[in-house]
Structures are given as structure tokens and as C-alpha cells.
């Protein structure tokens, strides 16, 4: 009888086998460890070595973290406290320096009594961002706004704000929450007005200055509406912008002076050199991020334009900016730019830095967006054309939503880089949190010789912010993923 025949003997199963678990070595934690840590000799050696490295790092740094001292007035007191706690020769972190100087890391030399202004501005920043970040998700937006409201009140009390301003903030946030609940579309006004409100809160001065600038935009819109039926979109926008420039450069000062004399409302003016720490980093970073995205998109479109002059100018601008180090741009901002302006114009240093950082970032954004545009199949442009959409409508509804979605990781990378690069303003004498404020703290006789703690503190805050941006971009990518590839 052949082997083959033995296998063809008729067979009928009379009892079904029940399901069983895999053997103990093939499931759960044991399986995971075997597969991921000890799958072979090489892998086992690497695992042991890594564990050793982790152990050594912990062995040398853990006591330092565990022996942290929070209450002391100088580094010497810190050291004494560590010795008393852990014995001779022990090391310990001296977080007392953060406890004593946190306000400088946060606000620089901003007057202590006025901390409620940057705190309120920071909270309003999130209100302004809410419709942009979670425009279509009412629940998430409400959660964000509620958290901001609670955090704002706690922070205001934390920085020692008087009751009047805390109650003002509570009322303002309650109003915003109500608007968000009842008329979410109206919330976009908070976003549009935020630049003026934020500026007014941070720098103070007469209330009529920011209002005057806003009126310039009013002029732009009014002229545009007036001319639209006669001259079309492009000419309407151009002339509207021209009229607004005339307003800003020639008329505004006179009008605001008159208004200020009639109604001298305002907040105490703060000088730019009192800004510092994360307040400075946020002022520069947020403004530059918000301004560089639209500018970058326009540059990317310009670079792909059929119009020779626009294309050449865009390419020239992008390549020039990308070819120059940021520090050069900052020096230009602090030193050279003044030469090109009429004498006696007092052009704020922070503003100059913001403008050049914005230009710098926009060149990078432009290239990232160009990558997204190039990734779109030509058929998308053709379909938009064939349906009769004009250039701007096609860009707005078809091209940009897709190109920006593709570019999200690159754009957010640029933003993160930009935000971290704000520390470079230390080179033009501004008080950035990393070098500027830390140098001041370390120059204090009480804290001379301290170096890990301030850098770890500042680094942690930067990490949290950048990590947050990165997470948000991943959320956005997931939300916008509709192509089901």
C-alpha cells in the first residue's frame, strides 16, 4: 500500500475541537518580551546593554532629582539643604531658583503689577485660535474654551491680580463661552480682532492707536465694496489696500490724536525692552507664525505663477531669504533697518524682529506649500478649470485644501523651528528665555554657578509647546484624511 493511498482513506470528524489559547510562551507579556527584547543573541546583547545604559543614567541623575530643594534664597542655601538632607557629598537640584525667578522667565522685566495683561492676552490667544483649531467640532471647542477660562482665572490669581481685573476676566470669558455656544460663527470676530486686542494689552498706551489701525482695515473693506461692481476683485483689492495705506500713513495719527485728546482712554504704556522670557518668545513666535502662513502661501503661488515678473520676484525672494542665516536677518532688524527709515522714526525693535522673522519663516513655508502643490495631480486643476471656477476660487476650494493638507507635517515643522528660533533674538539684545533671562538670573550673586535648573526648566516648557503643536498636527492629519487610500 502506497503512502499516497494511506492519506486518501475516508475520514469523518465526529467531534469538533474546542478553541484553545496558544501556549503560555506564545501569548501575552512573555511573547512580547521574547519577540521584542530577546529574539536572538544580538538582540539580547543590545537589550542588556541598553538596560545598563538606562541604569547608569538613572544611577547618576536620580539622586539629583530626588534631592530637589524648592525653598531656599541662594545656591549656597540650596547646597546646605541638600547636604543636610542626603549627607555629605550628595548632589541635588535647586529648583528654588525657579520658584524665586519664574516671573522673569515668564515675563522678563514686565511690571509685576501688570502681569494680568500678558496672561489675559495669552488666554485670548486660545480664544482666537479656537475657531481655527476646532471650527467644526463644537464639543472640543467648548472644552478648550472652558479649560482656558479656568486656567485664566487660576493664573490671574496666581500672579496676584487684583479682584477687579479677575472679575473682568471672568465676565469676558463667560461672554465668550456664551457666544461660542449660541453663535459659533461669530467667534471668528474674536480671531480677527485679536491682533489689535493683544497688542493693546501687551504694549498698552492709548486705546485709539489699535482702533485706528483697525479702522484702516475698515477703509480697505469699504473701498473694496464700493469699487467691486465697477472694477472687479483685483483692482478693488489693490485700490482698497492703497486707500488703507493712505489712512495708516497720513490720516490715522491726526484722527487718533484728536480722539485721544477728547477721550484719553488707555492702559499704562510698556516699553519693548521690558519684554522678556516666554512673553517675548510668544509675542514673536505667534505673530510670525500667524503672518508667515498666508505670506508663504502667496509666495508659493507666485513661484508657480505663469506671470514672469511675479514668478521671478517670488523665486528671488525665497532663494535670497533661504540663503541668509536668521542671525543675519536679526542683525539687519536691529542695526541696518534703521538706516533705511526716515530719521527720527521710532520703529520698535520687537516689531522689526517680528517682520524679519516672518519673512524668514514665510520663505520656508512657501517651499513646503510648493511641495504640496506639486503633489496634486494636474487633473485637479483641470477639473476645477472645466467646472468654470476662476483662479482664486479654484485655489480656495480645490487646490489649497488639498495642498495644505499634504503640507501639514512640513508646515508644523517650520512652525516648531520658528518658535524655537525665537531664542536667537538674544543676539540682538532682547531677553529671550533661554540665554537672556538665564544670564540675568545667573549673574545674581545668590545664584552664581547654577546652570542645569534654568535650562531644564526653559527646555521643558519649549518641549511641551512644540510637542503640543506636533500632536495637534497629527490630529489634524487624521481628521482631514478623506482619501481612503
Amino acid at each position, binding site marked *: 500500500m502506497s503512502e499516497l493511498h494511506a492519506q486518501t482513506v475516508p475520514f469523518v470528524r465526529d467531534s469538533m475541537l474546542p478553541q484553545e489559547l496558544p501556549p503560555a510562551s506564545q501569548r501575552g507579556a512573555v511573547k512580547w518580551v521574547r519577540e521584542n527584547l530577546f529574539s536572538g543573541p544580538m538582540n539580547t546583547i543590545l537589550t542588556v546593554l541598553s538596560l545598563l545604559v538606562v541604569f547608569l543614567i538613572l544611577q547618576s541623575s536620580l539622586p539629583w532629582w530626588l534631592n530637589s530643594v524648592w525653598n531656599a534664597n541662594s545656591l549656597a542655601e540650596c547646597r546646605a539643604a541638600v547636604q543636610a538632607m542626603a549627607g555629605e557629598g550628595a548632589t541635588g537640584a535647586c529648583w528654588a531658583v525657579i520658584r524665586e525667578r519664574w516671573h522673569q522667565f515668564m515675563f522678563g522685566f514686565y511690571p509685576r503689577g501688570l502681569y494680568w495683561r500678558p496672561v489675559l492676552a495669552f488666554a485670548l490667544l486660545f480664544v482666537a485660535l479656537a475657531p481655527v483649531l476646532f471650527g467644526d467640532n463644537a464639543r472640543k471647542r467648548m472644552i478648550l474654551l472652558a479649560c482656558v477660562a479656568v486656567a485664566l482665572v487660576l493664573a490671574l490669581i496666581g500672579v496676584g491680580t487684583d479682584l477687579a481685573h479677575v472679575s473682568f476676566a471672568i465676565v469676558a470669558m463667560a461672554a465668550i463661552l456664551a457666544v461660542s455656544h449660541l453663535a459659533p460663527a461669530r467667534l471668528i470676530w474674536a480671531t480677527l480682532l485679536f491682533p489689535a486686542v493683544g497688542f493693546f494689552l501687551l504694549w498698552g498706551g492709548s486705546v485709539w492707536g489699535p482702533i485706528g489701525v483697525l479702522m484702516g482695515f475698515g477703509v480697505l473693506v469699504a473701498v473694496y465694496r464700493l469699487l467691486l461692481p465697477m472694477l472687479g476683485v483685483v483692482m478693488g483689492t489693490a485700490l482698497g489696500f492703497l486707500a488703507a495705506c493712505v489712512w495708516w500713513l497720513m490720516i490715522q495719527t491726526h484722527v487718533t490724536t484728536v480722539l485721544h485728546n477728547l477721550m484719553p482712554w488707555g492702559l499704562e504704556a510698556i516699553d519693548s525692552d521690558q519684554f522678556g522670557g516666554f512673553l517675548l518668545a510668544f509675542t514673536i513666535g505667534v505673530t510670525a507664525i500667524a503672518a508667515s502662513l498666508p505670506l508663504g502661501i502667496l509666495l508659493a503661488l507666485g513661484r508657480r505663477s505663469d506671470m514672469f515678473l511675479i514668478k521671478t520676484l517670488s523665486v528671488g525672494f525665497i532663494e535670497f531669504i533661504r540663503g541668509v542665516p536668521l542671525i543675519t536677518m536679526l542683525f539687519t532688524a536691529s542695526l541696518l533697518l534703521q538706516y533705511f527709515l526716515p530719521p527720527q522714526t521710532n520703529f520698535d525693535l520687537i516689531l522689526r524682529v517680528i517682520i524679519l522673522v516672518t519673512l524668514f519663516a514665510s520663505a520656508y513655508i512657501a517651499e513646503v506649500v510648493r511641495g504640496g502643490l506639486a503633489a496634486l495631480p494636474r487633473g485637479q486643476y483641470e*477639473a476645477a478649470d472645466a467646472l468654470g471656477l476662476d483662479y482664486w476660487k479654484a485655489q480656495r476650494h480645490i487646490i489649497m485644501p488639498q495642498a495644505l493638507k499634504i503640507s501639514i507635517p512640513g508646515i508644523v515643522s517650520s512652525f516648531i523651528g520658528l518658535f524655537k528660533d525665537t531664542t536667537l533674538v538674544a543676539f540682538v539684545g532682547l531677553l529671550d528665555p533661554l540665554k537672556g533671562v538665564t544670564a540675568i538670573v545667573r549673574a545674581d550673586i545668590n545664584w552664581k554657578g547654577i546652570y542645569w535648573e534654568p535650562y531644564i526648566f526653559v527646555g521643558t516648557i519649549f518641549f511641551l509647546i512644540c510637542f503640543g503643536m506636533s500632536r495637534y498636527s497629527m490630529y489634524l492629519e487624521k481628521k482631514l484624511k478623506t482619501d481612503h487610500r
Partner: protein
Amino acid sequence: MNETIDRPIDTSHMQVSDEVAIQISQMNKWYGTFHVLRDINMTVQRGERIVICGPSGSGKSTLIRCINRLEEHQAGQIVVDGTELTSDLKNIDKVRSEVGMVFQHFNLFPHLTILENCTLAPIWVRKTPKKEAEEVAMHFLRKVKIPEQANKYPGQLSGGQQQRVAIARSLCMKPRIMLFDEPTSALDPEMIKEVLDTMIALAEEGMTMLCVTHEMGFAQAVANRVIFMDQGQIVEQNEPREFFNNPKSDRTKLFLSQILGH
């Protein structure tokens, strides 16, 4: 000859009017120095259904893409619905909103739902109120037999469904002329039929259609005229029965023997 058309099409009621829909005269086009279209002369009456065929590279796609200015012609004249195509953007936009186009690769907008794909142009070009645009879109989606997919994204649909959405999207603009650029070439054989059925239904309603296709069954069933192109020129045109049974030019005979021979 072609099993995808399985029902007899009654073309007797598909009246062709005397009104001229498209007039092309002495039209020439170059890509760089390459002469793609040479002396094209062609008149399309309203309600006519024209099939354009020819070997690849013969300029047939380029020709219909010139009709809505996706390609620019360098000499001669194209008049669509009384509007001449020049570099004047206003005329181009006017023509494009009157002429629907269906592409080989569908070109649906992947970031929008089917319904949004169909309502986008009516809302932003025709300024139709959103609600009305949605009603119109659902009407045409029912017509192409996929109303139940309205809230899905294009990536979730099969090729044939996507192409039918593309047809519905064009129809939502209420075009007077439809251009089809090899609408079934990227589809599986099974899906070709559902798209052709949609096109036949459109033809039966009297739509002016220009169709670049290799579906000779479709040409025989619905076309009033077949145009054969080679090397950027119109080589032969005739009504379908004559064209297929009694081709005049040697080039046409060769082409027909190659595509119908097997």
C-alpha cells in the same frame, strides 16, 4: 462587435437642430514646435452626438480639450455657443460654465464628499443657494443611480461609480454641451457598461455630446457622426453605419481592422 451595448437604441427621436453649438475653423495647435492639430474644421449642431476616434497621439483628446480651453490653440477660430475662445478670461469662464467635461481619470475632488463635489461649482460659479444646489445634485445623482453614496468620499467608490459621479458633477452645472475624454478607458470591463448606459441615457435626452472613445459599440448605437483622426488631422468623418461598413480612407480601414479584427 461590442457586447457592452446590449439594448437597441432608438435614435429616431433624437432630433438634431439647425442651431450651431460649436464652430471650429482653420484651427491649428502646436506643442512647442510640434504641430499637434492641423487645419481642423468642424461644425457641431445642437443635439448632435459625435464620437471621435483614432490611434493614440492623433490629437483627439487635444481637440476636445481645446473646446473648453484646457489647451490653447495658436491659430484659427473656435466659437462655442456664440462665444469665441480668445485669451479673454471672461469668455473662457463663460464657455467653461456652459460646457461640461468628463475625464479619463474622473478627477473628482478627494477632499469633498460626493454631494459637495456636485454642489461646489453651482454654488461658487452659478451662485445657486446651497439648498437648491443640493436638490439639483441629488436629482442628478439619482439619474446616474447612486444617490445613496452622496455623503461618501470619492475614495470609497468604485471606478465606475466615480465616473458616474463625475458625469453628475458636470450635469449639475446644467451644461449645453458635454465633452467626454476617454471616459471608460480607465475602467474594468464590468464598469464600462454602467458608464456607457449613463451616457446613452444622456444622449437620449438630446444633449450635445463630443466623445473621444474606443467603444465602437457606443459609437454605432448613439453617434450621429464618427470622426476619425490621425496625425493631428481629421482623416474621415461619416455617419456610423457608413463609417464602419464602408470606410473610404486606407488609414481608417487599417485602424478599424486593428481594433475590430480580433
